[in-house]
C-alpha cells in the first residue's frame, strides 16, 4: 500500500528523487560530531514545544471568547465544563513556561560551549530574537484569561516602558490602546498572540534552521579542540566525516529529550496543577481593585526587580536595553578564537555574576 502511494506520487512529481537526494543525503546521512551531548537537542525541543503550543492554542480558540465581558467566563468554562478543557489549558500554560525555560537553557548552553562564534553570529542573533518573541508570546497570552492576575500583571508590564523619557508613554499607549488596560488592550494582545507572533516565530525559526543547515553543526570545545578556520575567507559547510550519522544516533537523543519534555510537563500538570495559577488567576479582572501582591511572570521578574532597585527609572531601563543589545550582538564583539569558557576566566566570571544576579533577582521578586 505504502509503496503504491510512493509510486503514485513519484511518477507524477518525482518525489523519490527529492526524498533520496535532499532528505537522505542532506539530513539523514549528515554526520554529527562525536562529542555532542543532550544539550544539542534543546533547539529541536523548542520546535516541539512550539508545535504543542500551536496545537493546544488552536484547541483553546474553539471555546475562548476574546471580549472583556466573556473572556474570564469562557476560560473558566474551559477549565470546568468543557470535557478535558483543563488538560489542554494546563498543557498550554505549563508548555509556555517550559518553552521559555528550554529556550533560555538552549541559549545558555550555546554560550557555554562557545557555539555562537563565527561563522554563526547570525544564528545566535536570530535565536536571541526568537527568545524575545517567545517571551512576548508569554506575556501577551498572560492577559487573555482576563483575571485579576492577567489584568494587573499586564498593567505592571505595560507600565515598564513609561520609565523611558519622551517615547515611553507613547510605547505604553500603543501597547494598551489607551491609558489603561481595556477591551482594546485585550484585542491587541489577542491579535499579537495568535496572528503576529506565530508568523514572526516561524519566520525566525525558518531562518535559524536554514543558517544551521548552511554552516553545519558546531562541535563542543570539551575534550577535543574545535576551531573554525581564521580568517574566514570562503564558505565551507562544517562536516565531520568521522562523526555519527544523524539517524539513528542523534535522532534517538532528540526522541529521548522529547519524552523527557513531556514527562516534565505532565509531572507538573499532575502534581503541581496550580503552579502557574495563583489565587488571583481565578478571580475575574477588576479594574478598581489592585491585589496586594502582583508580579509579572517569572521570566520578567528580574527585569521588573532591576527597575525597582535602581532609583532612576531611565537608568534602569537604559541598562536593560544595553544588556539586551549586548546579549544579541555578543558574537560580533567576542572575536576570540577560544570556545572553551573554562579557559576564559574573565568571561566566565561575568557570566556567573550575571546568572547569579538573575537568579537572586528572580527569587527576591517572588518572595
Amino acid at each position: 500500500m505504502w509503496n503504491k502511494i510512493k509510486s503514485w506520487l513519484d511518477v507524477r512529481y518525482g518525489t523519490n528523487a527529492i526524498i533520496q537526494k535532499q532528505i537522505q543525503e542532506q539530513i539523514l546521512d549528515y554526520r554529527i560530531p562525536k562529542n555532542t551531548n543532550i544539550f544539542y537537542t534543546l533547539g529541536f525541543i523548542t520546535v516541539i514545544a512550539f508545535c504543542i503550543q500551536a496545537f493546544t492554542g488552536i484547541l483553546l480558540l474553539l471555546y475562548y471568547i476574546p471580549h472583556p465581558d466573556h473572556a474570564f467566563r469562557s476560560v473558566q468554562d474551559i477549565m470546568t465544563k468543557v470535557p478535558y478543557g483543563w488538560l489542554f489549558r494546563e498543557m498550554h500554560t505549563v508548555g509556555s513556561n517550559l518553552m521559555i525555560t528550554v529556550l533560555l537553557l538552549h541559549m545558555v548552553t550555546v554560550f557555554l560551549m562557545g557555539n555562537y562564534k563565527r561563522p554563526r553570529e547570525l544564528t545566535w542573533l536570530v535565536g536571541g530574537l526568537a527568545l524575545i518573541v517567545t517571551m512576548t508570546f508569554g506575556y501577551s497570552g498572560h492577559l487573555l484569561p482576563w483575571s485579576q492576575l492577567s489584568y494587573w500583571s499586564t498593567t505592571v508590564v505595560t507600565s515598564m516602558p513609561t520609565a523611558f523619557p519622551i517615547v515611553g508613554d507613547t510605547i505604553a499607549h500603543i501597547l494598551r490602546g489607551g491609558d489603561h488596560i481595556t477591551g482594546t488592550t485585550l484585542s491587541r494582545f489577542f491579535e499579537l498572540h495568535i496572528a503576529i507572533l506565530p508568523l514572526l516565530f516561524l519566520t525566525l525559526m525558518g531562518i535559524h534552521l536554514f543558517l544551521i543547515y548552511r554552516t553545519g553543526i558546531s562541535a563542543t570545545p570539551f575534550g577535543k579542540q574545535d576551531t573554525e578556520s581564521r580568517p574566514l575567507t570562503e564558505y565551507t559547510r562544517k562536516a565531520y566525516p568521522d562523526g555519527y550519522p544523524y539517524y539513528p544516533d542523534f535522532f534517538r537523543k532528540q526522541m529521548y529529550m522529547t519524552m523527557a519534555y513531556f514527562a516534565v510537563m505532565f509531572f507538573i500538570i499532575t502534581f503541581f496543577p496550580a503552579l502557574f495559577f495563583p489565587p488571583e488567576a481565578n478571580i475575574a479582572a477588576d479594574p478598581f481593585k489592585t491585589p496586594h501582591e502582583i508580579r509579572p511572570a517569572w521570566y520578567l521578574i528580574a527585569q521588573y526587580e532591576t527597575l525597582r532597585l535602581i532609583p532612576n527609572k531611565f537608568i534602569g531601563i537604559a541598562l536593560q536595553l544595553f544588556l539586551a543589545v549586548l546579549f544579541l550582538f555578543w558574537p560580533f564583539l567576542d572575536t576570540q578564537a577560544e570556545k572553551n569558557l573554562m579557559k576564559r576566566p574573565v568571561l566566565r566570571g561575568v557570566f556567573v555574576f550575571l546568572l547569579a544576579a538573575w537568579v537572586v533577582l528572580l527569587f527576591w521578586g517572588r518572595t
Partner: protein
Amino acid sequence: MKRRKFLTIILAFLGSVTSASFAYSLLKFLTATPATGVNSKKIVLHRNEVPYGGAKNIIYGDTPVMVINRPEKGFIAFVRTCTHLGCLIEFSKSSQKIICPCHAGTYDLDGSVESGPPPKPLTAIPIKIEGDTIIIG
C-alpha cells in the same frame, strides 16, 4: 521471545494506550457544547402571555424556543430549529400547524413531521405548569 521483540511489543502497547487516551480526550473536547444547556436558566412565563391556540417565541439560554398553548392539549415547548436544514420554524395560527418557511416542512402541534423534507420530529423542551405560571427548562 527475543529481547528486541519483547521491547518492541511493550513500546507499541504503551504508545497505543497513550495515543488512544489522548485521542479520546481530544474527541470529548471537540464535541463539547458548553454554551447550550450549561448557561440556560429557567424561564418563567405567565399563562396569559401565551394565548389559547397561540404561541410565543422566546430565547432559552442561547436557543430560540417556541411555547404553544394547544387547544385541549395544553402547553408544549419546542426548539425552533427545523430538523431539515436548521431554519427557524413558525407557528401558523390559522392552520394550527408548525411550518418551516424555507422548504415548506410541516409539523403538527406535538412536533411530529406531517409533510415535507424534515427527517425527524422537533426537539421538545421540558416545561412545568405551576398555577398560572409556565416554567421552561
